[in-house]
Protein backbone atom coordinates (compact mmCIF):
# COMPACT_ATOMS: atom_id res chain seq x y z
CA UNK A 1 0.00 0.00 0.00
CA UNK A 2 2.84 2.40 0.78
CA UNK A 3 4.96 2.94 -2.29
CA UNK A 4 8.39 3.97 -1.00
CA UNK A 5 11.49 4.15 -3.15
CA UNK A 6 14.79 2.77 -1.82
CA UNK A 7 16.07 6.30 -1.21
CA UNK A 8 13.06 7.19 0.94
CA UNK A 9 13.49 3.98 2.94
CA UNK A 10 17.13 4.78 3.72
CA UNK A 11 16.10 8.36 4.59
CA UNK A 12 13.60 7.10 7.18
CA UNK A 13 15.93 4.47 8.67
CA UNK A 14 18.86 6.90 8.78
CA UNK A 15 16.69 9.55 10.42
CA UNK A 16 15.57 7.19 13.15
CA UNK A 17 19.16 6.10 13.78
CA UNK A 18 20.10 9.77 14.44
CA UNK A 19 16.99 10.37 16.60
CA UNK A 20 15.48 12.83 14.07
CA UNK A 21 12.40 11.47 12.27
CA UNK A 22 11.09 12.67 8.91
CA UNK A 23 8.59 14.99 10.64
CA UNK A 24 11.16 16.36 13.10
CA UNK A 25 10.07 14.36 16.12
CA UNK A 26 12.44 12.56 18.49
CA UNK A 27 12.25 8.76 18.82
CA UNK A 28 9.98 8.81 21.90
CA UNK A 29 7.76 11.84 21.23
CA UNK A 30 4.14 11.69 20.19
CA UNK A 31 2.36 13.57 17.45
CA UNK A 32 -0.09 16.28 18.67
CA UNK A 33 -3.10 14.55 20.29
CA UNK A 34 -6.55 16.18 19.96
CA UNK A 35 -9.50 14.75 21.94
CA UNK A 36 -13.20 15.55 21.42
CA UNK A 37 -15.82 13.89 23.59
CA UNK A 38 -19.55 13.52 23.04
CA UNK A 39 -19.27 13.52 19.24
CA UNK A 40 -22.11 10.97 18.89
CA UNK A 41 -25.00 12.27 21.10
CA UNK A 42 -27.14 9.13 20.54
CA UNK A 43 -24.57 6.85 22.24
CA UNK A 44 -24.08 6.60 26.02
CA UNK A 45 -20.51 7.85 25.59
CA UNK A 46 -18.31 8.70 22.62
CA UNK A 47 -14.98 10.28 21.81
CA UNK A 48 -12.89 11.19 18.76
CA UNK A 49 -9.10 11.08 18.93
CA UNK A 50 -6.75 12.61 16.40
CA UNK A 51 -3.05 11.63 16.65
CA UNK A 52 -1.46 13.55 13.82
CA UNK A 53 -3.38 12.33 10.76
CA UNK A 54 -4.71 9.17 12.45
CA UNK A 55 -8.37 9.82 13.31
CA UNK A 56 -10.60 7.32 15.17
CA UNK A 57 -14.04 7.52 16.76
CA UNK A 58 -15.11 5.19 19.57
CA UNK A 59 -18.56 4.94 21.14
CA UNK A 60 -19.97 3.05 24.13
CA UNK A 61 -23.56 1.78 24.14
CA UNK A 62 -25.07 0.14 27.20
CA UNK A 63 -27.93 -2.34 26.90
CA UNK A 64 -29.54 -4.54 29.54
CA UNK A 65 -28.61 -8.21 29.28
CA UNK A 66 -28.25 -11.40 31.24
CA UNK A 67 -24.85 -12.29 32.79
CA UNK A 68 -23.22 -15.57 31.68
CA UNK A 69 -23.77 -18.49 33.99
CA UNK A 70 -20.07 -18.93 34.78
CA UNK A 71 -19.74 -15.37 36.14
CA UNK A 72 -23.16 -14.28 37.47
CA UNK A 73 -21.66 -11.32 39.34
CA UNK A 74 -20.07 -9.65 36.30
CA UNK A 75 -21.39 -7.60 33.40
CA UNK A 76 -20.26 -8.18 29.82
CA UNK A 77 -18.11 -5.97 27.60
CA UNK A 78 -17.46 -6.56 23.90
CA UNK A 79 -15.24 -4.51 21.66
CA UNK A 80 -15.66 -4.24 17.85
CA UNK A 81 -13.44 -2.29 15.47
CA UNK A 82 -14.57 -1.31 11.98
CA UNK A 83 -12.22 0.09 9.32
CA UNK A 84 -14.15 2.60 7.24
CA UNK A 85 -13.29 2.84 3.54
CA UNK A 86 -12.73 6.57 4.06
CA UNK A 87 -9.42 5.63 5.68
CA UNK A 88 -8.07 3.78 2.64
CA UNK A 89 -9.61 2.52 -0.61
CA UNK A 90 -8.52 -1.04 0.19
CA UNK A 91 -10.91 -1.13 3.17
CA UNK A 92 -13.86 -1.05 0.78
CA UNK A 93 -16.34 -3.91 1.14
CA UNK A 94 -14.72 -6.79 3.01
CA UNK A 95 -11.17 -5.49 2.52
CA UNK A 96 -10.70 -4.10 6.01
CA UNK A 97 -12.13 -7.17 7.78
CA UNK A 98 -8.85 -8.90 8.61
CA UNK A 99 -7.27 -5.77 10.12
CA UNK A 100 -10.48 -5.06 12.05
CA UNK A 101 -10.53 -8.54 13.66
CA UNK A 102 -6.85 -8.25 14.51
CA UNK A 103 -7.37 -4.86 16.18
CA UNK A 104 -10.49 -6.02 18.04
CA UNK A 105 -8.70 -9.06 19.47
CA UNK A 106 -5.66 -6.98 20.48
CA UNK A 107 -7.93 -4.45 22.23
CA UNK A 108 -9.93 -7.15 23.96
CA UNK A 109 -6.70 -8.75 25.16
CA UNK A 110 -5.37 -5.48 26.57
CA UNK A 111 -8.53 -4.05 28.15
CA UNK A 112 -10.53 -7.06 29.35
CA UNK A 113 -7.84 -9.05 31.13
CA UNK A 114 -7.96 -12.79 31.66
CA UNK A 115 -11.01 -15.06 31.12
CA UNK A 116 -11.89 -14.92 34.80
CA UNK A 117 -12.21 -11.14 34.46
CA UNK A 118 -9.36 -10.42 36.86
CA UNK A 119 -7.10 -7.55 35.82
CA UNK A 120 -9.74 -6.06 33.56
CA UNK A 121 -9.32 -2.36 33.02
CA UNK A 122 -13.10 -1.95 33.29
CA UNK A 123 -14.54 -3.01 36.66
CA UNK A 124 -17.06 -5.62 35.46
CA UNK A 125 -18.72 -6.16 38.80
CA UNK A 126 -19.90 -2.51 38.83
CA UNK A 127 -22.07 -3.38 35.81
CA UNK A 128 -24.34 -5.81 37.67
CA UNK A 129 -27.94 -4.77 38.40
CA UNK A 130 -29.41 -8.00 39.80
CA UNK A 131 -26.80 -10.70 40.31
CA UNK A 132 -27.33 -13.63 37.97
CA UNK A 133 -30.37 -12.07 36.27
CA UNK A 134 -29.73 -8.62 34.85
CA UNK A 135 -26.55 -6.79 34.06
CA UNK A 136 -25.36 -4.08 31.72
CA UNK A 137 -23.81 -5.21 28.41
CA UNK A 138 -21.34 -2.61 27.17
CA UNK A 139 -20.87 -2.58 23.38
CA UNK A 140 -17.75 -0.60 22.49
CA UNK A 141 -17.75 0.19 18.74
CA UNK A 142 -14.74 1.89 17.19
CA UNK A 143 -14.46 3.32 13.69
CA UNK A 144 -11.19 4.12 11.94
CA UNK A 145 -11.88 7.32 9.99
CA UNK A 146 -8.34 7.99 8.78
CA UNK A 147 -5.31 5.77 9.31
CA UNK A 148 -1.77 7.11 9.34
CA UNK A 149 -0.11 4.48 11.52
CA UNK A 150 -0.28 3.70 15.25
CA UNK A 151 -3.95 2.69 15.11
CA UNK A 152 -3.87 0.52 18.25
CA UNK A 153 -2.68 3.35 20.56
CA UNK A 154 -5.23 5.76 19.09
CA UNK A 155 -8.05 3.21 19.56
CA UNK A 156 -6.95 2.47 23.15
CA UNK A 157 -6.94 6.18 23.98
CA UNK A 158 -10.30 6.70 22.22
CA UNK A 159 -11.88 3.90 24.28
CA UNK A 160 -10.49 5.43 27.50
CA UNK A 161 -11.90 8.85 26.55
CA UNK A 162 -15.26 7.38 25.48
CA UNK A 163 -15.61 5.48 28.78
CA UNK A 164 -14.85 8.60 30.80
CA UNK A 165 -17.64 10.32 28.82
CA UNK A 166 -20.07 7.42 29.38
CA UNK A 167 -23.15 7.81 31.55
CA UNK A 168 -24.92 4.62 32.64
CA UNK A 169 -28.58 5.35 33.55
CA UNK A 170 -29.56 4.50 37.12
CA UNK A 171 -31.84 1.49 37.35
CA UNK A 172 -34.61 0.80 39.88
CA UNK A 173 -35.62 -2.86 40.20
CA UNK A 174 -39.29 -3.45 41.01
CA UNK A 175 -39.13 -5.17 44.40
CA UNK A 176 -40.87 -8.46 44.99
CA UNK A 177 -39.81 -9.98 41.67
CA UNK A 178 -38.78 -13.33 43.14
CA UNK A 179 -37.96 -16.63 41.46
CA UNK A 180 -35.92 -16.69 38.32
CA UNK A 181 -38.15 -14.84 35.92
CA UNK A 182 -36.80 -11.41 34.79
CA UNK A 183 -37.78 -8.69 37.29
CA UNK A 184 -39.16 -5.56 35.63
CA UNK A 185 -36.80 -2.65 35.60
CA UNK A 186 -37.32 1.02 34.91
CA UNK A 187 -34.46 3.10 33.59
CA UNK A 188 -34.35 6.70 34.68
CA UNK A 189 -32.95 8.98 32.02
CA UNK A 190 -31.96 11.88 34.24
CA UNK A 191 -29.26 10.86 36.67
CA UNK A 192 -26.37 8.91 35.26
CA UNK A 193 -23.59 7.25 37.19
CA UNK A 194 -20.17 8.10 35.81
CA UNK A 195 -17.57 5.48 35.09
CA UNK A 196 -14.30 5.46 36.97
CA UNK A 197 -11.65 5.17 34.28
CA UNK A 198 -8.66 5.54 36.58
CA UNK A 199 -7.32 2.04 36.11
CA UNK A 200 -8.07 1.66 32.40
CA UNK A 201 -4.68 0.92 30.83
CA UNK A 202 -3.05 2.95 28.08
CA UNK A 203 -1.59 1.17 25.04
CA UNK A 204 1.94 2.07 23.91
CA UNK A 205 3.32 0.58 20.70
CA UNK A 206 7.08 0.44 20.25
CA UNK A 207 8.08 -0.12 16.63
CA UNK A 208 11.59 -1.43 15.99
CA UNK A 209 13.21 -0.01 12.85
CA UNK A 210 16.83 -1.07 12.34
CA UNK A 211 18.43 -1.16 15.81
CA UNK A 212 16.25 1.47 17.51
CA UNK A 213 12.59 1.56 18.47
CA UNK A 214 10.21 4.48 18.11
CA UNK A 215 6.82 5.48 19.46
CA UNK A 216 3.74 6.59 17.49
CA UNK A 217 5.01 5.49 14.06
CA UNK A 218 3.40 6.84 10.89
CA UNK A 219 2.34 4.50 8.07
CA UNK A 220 5.65 5.01 6.23
CA UNK A 221 7.66 4.24 9.37
CA UNK A 222 5.45 1.22 10.08
CA UNK A 223 6.18 -0.13 6.62
CA UNK A 224 9.89 -0.18 7.59
CA UNK A 225 9.19 -2.00 10.88
CA UNK A 226 11.07 -5.24 11.56
CA UNK A 227 8.97 -5.95 14.65
CA UNK A 228 6.64 -4.10 17.01
CA UNK A 229 5.45 -4.62 20.57
CA UNK A 230 2.19 -3.13 21.87
CA UNK A 231 2.11 -2.97 25.65
CA UNK A 232 -0.84 -1.78 27.70
CA UNK A 233 0.15 -0.38 31.10
CA UNK A 234 -2.23 0.82 33.78
CA UNK A 235 -1.74 3.51 36.35
CA UNK A 236 -0.25 1.09 38.90
CA UNK A 237 2.51 0.24 36.41
CA UNK A 238 1.26 -3.30 35.89
CA UNK A 239 1.21 -4.69 32.37
CA UNK A 240 -2.35 -5.56 31.34
CA UNK A 241 -1.61 -6.89 27.88
CA UNK A 242 1.26 -7.41 25.49
CA UNK A 243 1.19 -8.25 21.83
CA UNK A 244 4.16 -8.68 19.53
CA UNK A 245 3.62 -8.04 15.85
CA UNK A 246 5.92 -8.09 12.90
CA UNK A 247 8.09 -10.91 11.66
CA UNK A 248 11.62 -10.69 12.95
CA UNK A 249 12.55 -12.52 16.16
CA UNK A 250 13.58 -10.54 19.22
CA UNK A 251 16.05 -11.45 21.93
CA UNK A 252 14.17 -11.81 25.28
CA UNK A 253 16.44 -9.21 26.89
CA UNK A 254 15.40 -6.66 24.25
CA UNK A 255 11.76 -7.50 24.98
CA UNK A 256 12.27 -6.75 28.70
CA UNK A 257 14.13 -3.54 27.84
CA UNK A 258 11.25 -2.46 25.59
CA UNK A 259 8.78 -3.22 28.39
CA UNK A 260 10.60 -0.88 30.79
CA UNK A 261 10.80 1.88 28.15
CA UNK A 262 7.08 1.46 27.44
CA UNK A 263 6.25 1.81 31.14
CA UNK A 264 8.22 5.03 31.28
CA UNK A 265 6.56 6.44 28.14
CA UNK A 266 3.10 5.36 29.26
CA UNK A 267 3.21 7.59 32.35
CA UNK A 268 3.72 10.69 30.20
CA UNK A 269 1.01 9.56 27.77
CA UNK A 270 -1.37 8.80 30.65
CA UNK A 271 -1.03 12.31 32.12
CA UNK A 272 -1.28 13.96 28.70
CA UNK A 273 -4.43 11.97 27.90
CA UNK A 274 -6.06 12.76 31.25
CA UNK A 275 -5.46 16.49 30.77
CA UNK A 276 -6.81 16.34 27.18
CA UNK A 277 -9.90 14.41 28.30
CA UNK A 278 -10.55 16.84 31.17
CA UNK A 279 -10.19 19.76 28.72
CA UNK A 280 -12.56 18.08 26.24
CA UNK A 281 -15.12 17.34 28.95
CA UNK A 282 -14.95 20.94 30.15
CA UNK A 283 -15.16 22.18 26.54
CA UNK A 284 -18.16 19.98 25.87
CA UNK A 285 -20.10 21.25 28.90
CA UNK A 286 -19.84 24.87 27.73
CA UNK A 287 -20.80 24.29 24.08
Amino acid at each position, binding site marked *: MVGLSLGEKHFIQGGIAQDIRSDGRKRLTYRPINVETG*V*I*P*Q*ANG*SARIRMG*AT*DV*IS*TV*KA*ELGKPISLQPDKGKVSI*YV*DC*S*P*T*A*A*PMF*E*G*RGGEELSTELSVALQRSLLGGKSGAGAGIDLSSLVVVEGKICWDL*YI*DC*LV*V*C*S*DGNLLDALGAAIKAALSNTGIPRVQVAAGASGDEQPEVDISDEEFLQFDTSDIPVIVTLTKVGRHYIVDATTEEESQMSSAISISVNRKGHICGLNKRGGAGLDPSIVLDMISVAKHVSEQLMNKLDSEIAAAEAGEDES
Partner: protein
Amino acid sequence: MEFVSPEGLRLDGRRPMEMRQIRAEIGAVAKADGSAVFEMGNTKVIAAVYGPREVQNRSQQINDQALVRCDYSMANFSTGDRMRKPKGDRRSTEISLVIRQTMEACILTHLMPRSQIDIFVQVLQADGGTRSACINAATLALADAGIPMRDLVTSCSSGYLNSTPLLDLNYVEDSAGGPDVTVGFLPKLDKVTLLQMDSKLPIDIFEKVMQLAIEGCKAIANYIREIMLENTKQLEYRRGI
Protein backbone atom coordinates in the same frame (compact mmCIF):
# COMPACT_ATOMS: atom_id res chain seq x y z
CA MET B 1 -49.61 10.88 16.20
CA GLU B 2 -49.77 14.62 15.72
CA PHE B 3 -46.81 15.90 13.73
CA VAL B 4 -47.77 19.51 13.38
CA SER B 5 -49.25 21.20 16.44
CA PRO B 6 -52.19 23.61 15.92
CA GLU B 7 -49.82 26.60 16.30
CA GLY B 8 -47.79 25.16 13.38
CA LEU B 9 -44.83 23.82 15.33
CA ARG B 10 -43.31 20.40 14.59
CA LEU B 11 -42.18 17.82 17.18
CA ASP B 12 -38.67 19.25 17.44
CA GLY B 13 -39.97 22.82 17.57
CA ARG B 14 -39.25 23.74 13.94
CA ARG B 15 -41.62 25.49 11.57
CA PRO B 16 -42.87 23.33 8.65
CA MET B 17 -40.77 25.37 6.24
CA GLU B 18 -37.67 25.39 8.45
CA MET B 19 -34.60 23.21 7.89
CA ARG B 20 -32.47 21.58 10.56
CA GLN B 21 -29.24 23.24 11.59
CA ILE B 22 -26.53 22.57 8.95
CA ARG B 23 -22.81 22.39 9.62
CA ALA B 24 -20.08 21.49 7.10
CA GLU B 25 -16.32 21.08 7.44
CA ILE B 26 -13.88 20.51 4.59
CA GLY B 27 -10.73 18.38 4.84
CA ALA B 28 -11.77 16.09 7.71
CA VAL B 29 -9.67 13.11 6.44
CA ALA B 30 -6.04 14.19 5.96
CA LYS B 31 -4.94 11.18 3.88
CA ALA B 32 -7.79 11.42 1.34
CA ASP B 33 -7.51 13.52 -1.84
CA GLY B 34 -10.70 15.31 -0.84
CA SER B 35 -12.94 14.93 2.19
CA ALA B 36 -15.75 16.64 4.06
CA VAL B 37 -18.11 16.24 7.02
CA PHE B 38 -21.76 17.29 6.59
CA GLU B 39 -24.24 17.56 9.46
CA MET B 40 -28.02 18.14 9.14
CA GLY B 41 -29.34 18.28 12.69
CA ASN B 42 -28.36 14.94 14.26
CA THR B 43 -27.56 13.26 10.94
CA LYS B 44 -23.77 13.31 10.55
CA VAL B 45 -21.96 11.96 7.49
CA ILE B 46 -18.28 11.91 6.49
CA ALA B 47 -17.23 11.56 2.84
CA ALA B 48 -13.78 10.91 1.36
CA VAL B 49 -12.74 11.01 -2.32
CA TYR B 50 -9.76 9.12 -3.74
CA GLY B 51 -8.88 9.86 -7.33
CA PRO B 52 -8.67 10.36 -10.21
CA ARG B 53 -6.29 7.38 -9.91
CA GLU B 54 -5.38 4.18 -11.74
CA VAL B 55 -8.23 1.73 -12.31
CA GLN B 56 -7.92 -1.32 -10.05
CA ASN B 57 -9.15 -4.02 -12.40
CA ARG B 58 -8.61 -3.47 -16.10
CA SER B 59 -11.96 -5.02 -17.04
CA GLN B 60 -13.92 -2.03 -15.68
CA GLN B 61 -11.74 0.59 -17.34
CA ILE B 62 -13.58 2.95 -19.74
CA ASN B 63 -11.31 4.52 -22.33
CA ASP B 64 -13.16 7.75 -23.01
CA GLN B 65 -14.27 8.75 -19.49
CA ALA B 66 -13.55 8.29 -15.79
CA LEU B 67 -15.08 5.39 -13.86
CA VAL B 68 -16.94 6.67 -10.80
CA ARG B 69 -17.38 4.18 -7.93
CA CYS B 70 -19.21 4.80 -4.68
CA ASP B 71 -19.42 2.90 -1.37
CA TYR B 72 -22.02 3.85 1.27
CA SER B 73 -21.63 2.27 4.71
CA MET B 74 -23.21 2.90 8.08
CA ALA B 75 -21.22 2.74 11.33
CA ASN B 76 -22.42 0.19 13.90
CA PHE B 77 -23.30 2.98 16.33
CA SER B 78 -25.06 5.16 13.76
CA THR B 79 -28.63 4.10 14.53
CA GLY B 80 -30.42 4.04 17.88
CA ASP B 81 -30.23 0.30 18.54
CA ARG B 82 -26.88 -1.24 17.85
CA MET B 83 -27.31 -3.08 14.57
CA ARG B 84 -24.78 -5.60 13.27
CA LYS B 85 -25.89 -5.55 9.60
CA PRO B 86 -23.44 -7.26 7.26
CA LYS B 87 -21.58 -4.96 4.88
CA GLY B 88 -23.31 -5.55 1.58
CA ASP B 89 -26.99 -5.40 2.52
CA ARG B 90 -29.57 -4.27 -0.03
CA ARG B 91 -30.32 -0.83 1.38
CA SER B 92 -26.70 0.35 1.35
CA THR B 93 -26.14 -1.09 -2.14
CA GLU B 94 -29.18 0.87 -3.39
CA ILE B 95 -28.03 4.10 -1.77
CA SER B 96 -24.51 3.62 -3.15
CA LEU B 97 -26.01 3.29 -6.64
CA VAL B 98 -28.17 6.41 -6.19
CA ILE B 99 -25.21 8.52 -5.01
CA ARG B 100 -22.97 7.20 -7.79
CA GLN B 101 -25.49 8.02 -10.52
CA THR B 102 -26.20 11.46 -9.08
CA MET B 103 -22.50 12.40 -8.81
CA GLU B 104 -21.59 10.82 -12.14
CA ALA B 105 -24.13 13.09 -13.84
CA CYS B 106 -22.39 16.23 -12.63
CA ILE B 107 -18.67 15.21 -12.83
CA LEU B 108 -17.01 16.07 -16.15
CA THR B 109 -15.83 12.49 -16.57
CA HIS B 110 -14.69 12.91 -20.18
CA LEU B 111 -11.81 15.13 -18.98
CA MET B 112 -10.23 12.19 -17.09
CA PRO B 113 -10.40 9.12 -19.38
CA ARG B 114 -9.23 5.67 -18.22
CA SER B 115 -9.12 6.83 -14.61
CA GLN B 116 -11.12 5.92 -11.52
CA ILE B 117 -12.74 8.17 -8.90
CA ASP B 118 -13.71 6.52 -5.57
CA ILE B 119 -16.30 8.20 -3.37
CA PHE B 120 -16.58 6.67 0.12
CA VAL B 121 -19.41 7.83 2.37
CA GLN B 122 -19.60 6.78 6.03
CA VAL B 123 -22.70 7.61 8.11
CA LEU B 124 -21.63 8.45 11.67
CA GLN B 125 -25.12 9.19 12.96
CA ALA B 126 -28.43 8.59 11.19
CA ASP B 127 -31.46 10.69 12.14
CA GLY B 128 -33.42 10.78 8.84
CA GLY B 129 -32.40 12.31 5.50
CA THR B 130 -29.12 10.32 5.36
CA ARG B 131 -29.35 10.11 1.56
CA SER B 132 -29.42 13.89 1.15
CA ALA B 133 -26.65 14.46 3.69
CA CYS B 134 -24.48 11.91 1.82
CA ILE B 135 -24.91 13.73 -1.50
CA ASN B 136 -24.07 17.11 0.04
CA ALA B 137 -20.99 15.64 1.74
CA ALA B 138 -19.92 13.97 -1.52
CA THR B 139 -20.22 17.25 -3.42
CA LEU B 140 -18.04 19.04 -0.87
CA ALA B 141 -15.48 16.23 -0.91
CA LEU B 142 -15.32 16.26 -4.74
CA ALA B 143 -14.85 20.03 -4.70
CA ASP B 144 -12.11 19.66 -2.06
CA ALA B 145 -10.41 17.08 -4.29
CA GLY B 146 -10.45 19.58 -7.16
CA ILE B 147 -12.44 17.34 -9.52
CA PRO B 148 -14.08 19.36 -12.35
CA MET B 149 -17.88 19.40 -12.02
CA ARG B 150 -20.68 21.00 -14.06
CA ASP B 151 -22.23 22.40 -10.89
CA LEU B 152 -22.58 21.59 -7.19
CA VAL B 153 -25.20 18.95 -6.44
CA THR B 154 -27.19 19.64 -3.31
CA SER B 155 -29.96 17.46 -1.98
CA CYS B 156 -32.79 17.82 0.47
CA SER B 157 -35.83 15.79 1.48
CA SER B 158 -39.37 16.91 2.23
CA GLY B 159 -42.60 15.19 3.20
CA TYR B 160 -46.32 15.70 3.68
CA LEU B 161 -47.86 14.96 7.11
CA ASN B 162 -51.07 16.19 8.72
CA SER B 163 -51.82 17.74 5.30
CA THR B 164 -48.92 20.23 5.57
CA PRO B 165 -45.73 19.93 3.48
CA LEU B 166 -42.72 19.57 5.83
CA LEU B 167 -39.13 20.37 4.87
CA ASP B 168 -36.15 18.19 5.91
CA LEU B 169 -37.75 15.28 7.80
CA ASN B 170 -35.99 13.77 10.78
CA TYR B 171 -36.10 10.07 11.71
CA VAL B 172 -39.43 10.22 13.59
CA GLU B 173 -41.21 12.09 10.75
CA ASP B 174 -39.51 9.90 8.15
CA SER B 175 -40.69 6.65 9.73
CA ALA B 176 -44.24 7.95 10.17
CA GLY B 177 -45.14 6.29 6.88
CA GLY B 178 -46.02 9.52 5.07
CA PRO B 179 -44.65 10.36 1.58
CA ASP B 180 -40.95 11.27 1.48
CA VAL B 181 -39.55 13.22 -1.50
CA THR B 182 -35.76 13.38 -1.97
CA VAL B 183 -34.53 15.90 -4.55
CA GLY B 184 -30.99 16.26 -6.02
CA PHE B 185 -30.62 19.75 -7.54
CA LEU B 186 -28.06 21.66 -9.65
CA PRO B 187 -28.51 25.22 -8.36
CA LYS B 188 -26.71 27.19 -11.14
CA LEU B 189 -28.18 25.18 -14.02
CA ASP B 190 -31.53 25.07 -12.14
CA LYS B 191 -32.01 21.40 -13.05
CA VAL B 192 -33.18 18.43 -10.96
CA THR B 193 -30.84 15.44 -11.27
CA LEU B 194 -32.37 13.16 -8.61
CA LEU B 195 -36.03 12.75 -7.71
CA GLN B 196 -37.18 9.92 -5.45
CA MET B 197 -40.59 9.57 -3.85
CA ASP B 198 -42.36 6.67 -2.18
CA SER B 199 -46.07 6.18 -1.24
CA LYS B 200 -49.02 8.03 -2.80
CA LEU B 201 -49.44 11.79 -3.21
CA PRO B 202 -51.83 13.75 -5.45
CA ILE B 203 -50.10 15.66 -8.28
CA ASP B 204 -50.80 19.21 -7.13
CA ILE B 205 -49.63 18.55 -3.58
CA PHE B 206 -46.60 16.78 -5.02
CA GLU B 207 -45.78 19.98 -6.97
CA LYS B 208 -45.80 21.99 -3.73
CA VAL B 209 -43.73 19.46 -1.78
CA MET B 210 -41.14 19.20 -4.55
CA GLN B 211 -40.91 22.97 -4.86
CA LEU B 212 -40.35 23.12 -1.10
CA ALA B 213 -37.50 20.60 -1.40
CA ILE B 214 -35.95 22.62 -4.24
CA GLU B 215 -36.03 25.73 -2.05
CA GLY B 216 -34.26 23.67 0.61
CA CYS B 217 -31.59 22.64 -1.91
CA LYS B 218 -31.00 26.25 -2.92
CA ALA B 219 -30.53 27.25 0.71
CA ILE B 220 -28.02 24.43 1.19
CA ALA B 221 -26.21 25.47 -2.01
CA ASN B 222 -25.72 29.00 -0.67
CA TYR B 223 -24.38 27.62 2.60
CA ILE B 224 -22.01 25.26 0.77
CA ARG B 225 -20.77 28.04 -1.50
CA GLU B 226 -20.06 30.16 1.59
CA ILE B 227 -18.11 27.34 3.23
CA MET B 228 -16.04 26.76 0.08
CA LEU B 229 -15.29 30.47 -0.28
CA GLU B 230 -14.12 30.57 3.32
CA ASN B 231 -12.03 27.43 2.77
CA THR B 232 -10.36 28.92 -0.32
CA LYS B 233 -9.54 32.07 1.69
CA GLN B 234 -7.97 29.72 4.27
CA LEU B 235 -5.87 28.02 1.57
CA GLU B 236 -4.90 31.39 0.11
CA TYR B 237 -3.87 32.62 3.53
CA ARG B 238 -1.82 29.49 4.18
CA ARG B 239 -0.09 29.88 0.82
CA GLY B 240 0.69 33.49 1.88
CA ILE B 241 -0.54 35.11 -1.39
